[in-house]
């Protein structure tokens, strides 16, 4: 915290010294790009952190500026400005949040469609601003906007802009280091995985978009008195595009990248556009180059260096979370669940019931519907008929994160991790799932959370201690173990494991099996395992469920299953 404030003060002093160094006029010019860089910080949050692309970000700047302009014109020197101006900054954020929520709830992806919607919306805003002449002044814009009360002359406004920029950087720095930042980066890596930890990712992405809207709004609110004129172009395509280019060139994933990009490329462009005819051509080429080869932008490398030299991990005493021992053991019941795609029946009247804690092995030939069963339970697919009940509640039709919140954890067949996040970030993301409140996500204390499972796992699998290693650098087996560990950390009452030992060496297999047994006995959990290796099944299963053609063929102890002639038939053909 101290270090954090210290850096902000140094930055502020530096910015305050600029007018003395460069002269007032230049400082004033730079002020405009300071404002743009505040909006670019928002683009950085959306695109660099949460991983979705806002193509129409200038829209929020425009809305904020128009609102601020009206307020300043009509309520000049009124104390109401103290309410109106903050509202003018927050309203764009609220609009962004609602748009985000509506779109992300509709379909869970950050893909091109979201980008195109934002682009269309910004064009819509531009059209409204151009055509609603009575209110906005139309194409010529809203002119004659007075400066902020008590700040006559552009020099004094510079200091306000510099201060707001410093605060914005500080806030964003705080946010992206807080748990929410880790989770946003997780969403951009592997959104599906996070939903199975219980995160409402649509909401969290909308939150990111909302915050970026506020940053755009703040920039707009100051833009109006700074320039004295707001035209539709402020909400238009060109500025949206420039914000994106600046963010990319500066480095979207870094804190200072968007700021550096906006100030450097922005002000250089303003100066050099007329001097060097091919300047804008060069910027466009630079943008393509950065997207293809330099995803971290120009700030990427220095910032990493800076972090290595100065950056200290936020450190504090570890907080040991109470283990949720004594949770009610789950009663899971699937009744005549059916799922078909086209004319193919994936699940066909699938019914079974699990009421006792224990290890249940789900076996069956390829295409029997084992993974689909997991998908149906965890809400990844919707069954077309039948019901799924957990305890006495129907969970069919639930979203994946709602299912996860009821204590169902899942490990995927192909290890599903967050490859570019570190090992400890991977583990934390799992630990926080279902435990962090919205407030916690903006707080640093969860960074120190741990629990006994976490400690125990690190003893069993020493590679988990290498906290700062990116998960993508792990071997296949280690990735399997990491994802298994992640799915354990949430202490699910019901754990679904899809071939947890696939691709593991026999030594690793032994350890994983040992861990599963340990979880089973310590927490009295219910574990459902898809497994092909019959030796393993014999080893761990309390009960075996054999599936064939989307339905249960047999349930029973290992011995009974082995004697069952129908089971032998589906495995090695008829003539055995």
């Amino acid at each position, binding site marked *: 915290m101290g270090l954090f404030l210290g850096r902000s003060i140094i930055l502020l002093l530096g910015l305050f010294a600029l007018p003395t160094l460069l002269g007032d006029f230049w400082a004033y010019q730079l002020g405009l790009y300071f404002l743009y860089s505040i909006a670019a910080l928002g683009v950085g949050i959306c695109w660099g952190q949460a991983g979705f692309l806002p193509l129409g970000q200038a829209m929020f700047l425009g809305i904020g500026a128009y609102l601020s302009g009206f307020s300043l014109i009509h309520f000049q020197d009124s104390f109401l400005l103290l309410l109106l101006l903050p509202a003018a900054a927050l309203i764009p954020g609220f609009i962004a949040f609602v748009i985000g929520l509506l779109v992300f709830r509709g379909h869970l992806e950050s893909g091109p469609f979201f980008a195109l919607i934002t682009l269309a919306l910004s064009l819509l805003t531009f059209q409204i601003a151009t055509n609603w002449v009575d209110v906005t002044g139309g194409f010529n814009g809203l002119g004659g906007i007075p400066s902020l009360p008590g700040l006559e002359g552009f020099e004094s406004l510079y200091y306000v802009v510099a201060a707001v920029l410093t605060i914005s950087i500080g806030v964003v720095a705080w946010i992206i280091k807080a748990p929410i930042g880790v989770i946003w980066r997780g969403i951009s890596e592997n959104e599906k995985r996070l939903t199975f930890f219980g995160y409402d990712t649509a909401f969290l992405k909308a939150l990111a978009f909302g915050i970026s809207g506020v940053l755009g709004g703040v920039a707009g609110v100051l833009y109006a008195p700074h320039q004295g004129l707001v035209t539709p172009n402020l909400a238009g395509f060109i500025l949206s595009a420039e914000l994106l280019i600046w963010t990319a060139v500066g480095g979207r994933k870094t804190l200072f990248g968007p700021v550096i990009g906006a100030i450097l490329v922005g002000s250089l462009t303003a100066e050099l556009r007329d001097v060097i005819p091919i300047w804008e051509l060069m910027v466009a080429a630079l943008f393509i180059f950065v997207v293809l080869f330099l995803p971290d932008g120009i700030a990427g490398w220095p910032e990493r260096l800076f972090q290595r030299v100065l950056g200290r991990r936020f450190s504090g005493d570890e907080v040991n979370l109470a283990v949720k021992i004594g949770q009610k053991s789950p009663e899971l019941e699937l009744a005549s669940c059916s799922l078909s795609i086209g004319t193919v029946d994936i699940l066909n009247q699938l019914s079974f019931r699990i009421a006792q804690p224990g290890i249940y092995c789900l076996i069956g030939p390829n295409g029997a519907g084992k993974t689909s069963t997991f998908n149906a339970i965890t809400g990844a697919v919707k069954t077309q008929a039948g019901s799924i009940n957990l305890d006495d509640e129907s969970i069919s039709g639930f979203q994946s994160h709602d299912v996860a919140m009821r204590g169902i954890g899942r490990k995927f067949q192909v290890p599903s991790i967050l490859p570019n996040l570190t090992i400890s970030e991977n583990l934390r993301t799992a630990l926080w799932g279902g435990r962090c409140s919205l407030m916690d996500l903006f707080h640093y204390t969860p960074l120190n959370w741990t629990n006994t499972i976490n400690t125990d796992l690190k003893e069993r699998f020493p590679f988990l201690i290498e906290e700062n290693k990116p998960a993508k650098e792990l071997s296949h087996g280690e990735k399997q173990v990491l994802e298994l560990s992640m799915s354990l950390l949430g202490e699910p009452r019901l754990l679904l494991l899809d071939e947890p030992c696939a691709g593991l060496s026999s030594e690793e297999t032994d350890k994983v099996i040992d861990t599963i047994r340990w979880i089973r006995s310590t927490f009295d959990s219910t574990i459902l395992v898809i497994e092909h290796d*019959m030796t393993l099944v014999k080893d761990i299963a309390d009960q075996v469920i054999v599936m064939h053609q989307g339905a249960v063929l047999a349930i029973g102890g290992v011995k009974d299953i082995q004697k069952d002639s129908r089971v032998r038939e589906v495995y090695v053909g008829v*003539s055995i």
Partner: protein
Amino acid sequence: MTSPIYSFDGVTGGYGGGIVVNDVSGCVEQGQVLFVLGRNGVGKSTLLHLLFGYLQLIRGSVRFKQMDLVGKKPEEMSSLGITFCPQERVVFGELSVLENLILMRGNRDITHLEGYFEHFPILAERLSQDAGTLSGGERKILSFVRALSEGRELLMLDEPTEGVQRENILHIAQLIRERKKSGATFVIVEQNLELLDEVGDHVLVMDQGKVMISSRKDLISREDIVRHLGV
């Protein structure tokens, strides 16, 4: 004994530089069928991917009719007389059944397919349907018919009977027998022993990326094979 038309020796490789298949050798004579057997995940499919050029060999050689196949790309194989049926994603789901069958032909004539439709009338019924709407077993049949109708000399099939009903497995066996007689050679990866009983000549049993048994089918007992498979 005639010399093998297709042979591979010391094949080693896997995904991303890892070694999944380790020093696997085998061969098959013209008009015969080599079966590669083993449990899930022992490297059978990886072996086929190595042989067909999807993956680069770390070590080993592959020869077809005196031709060195190492370094050849999958898209070159059909012009060399080899075709392949993958284990998963066996058809083009967004194309119709008909389009799947004639994709690489110059016209939409289907007279050459009528013989196959006698064995699998379901395909004829669903010609205009998207292949993605077929069941897993039906897709396997479509994939098999597609490969057979290309008329190549060597066919590599990855689990052609997975999800296929017994009756249709017998039709598949019948078609393979006919094609063997006209001189085609097969390499078939299987878990199910039914097809082996019907058309097999050589057996290669794998476990953990290595060859456990390599033998003529009639020289090996059923129990020896089963020991490495299934339950």
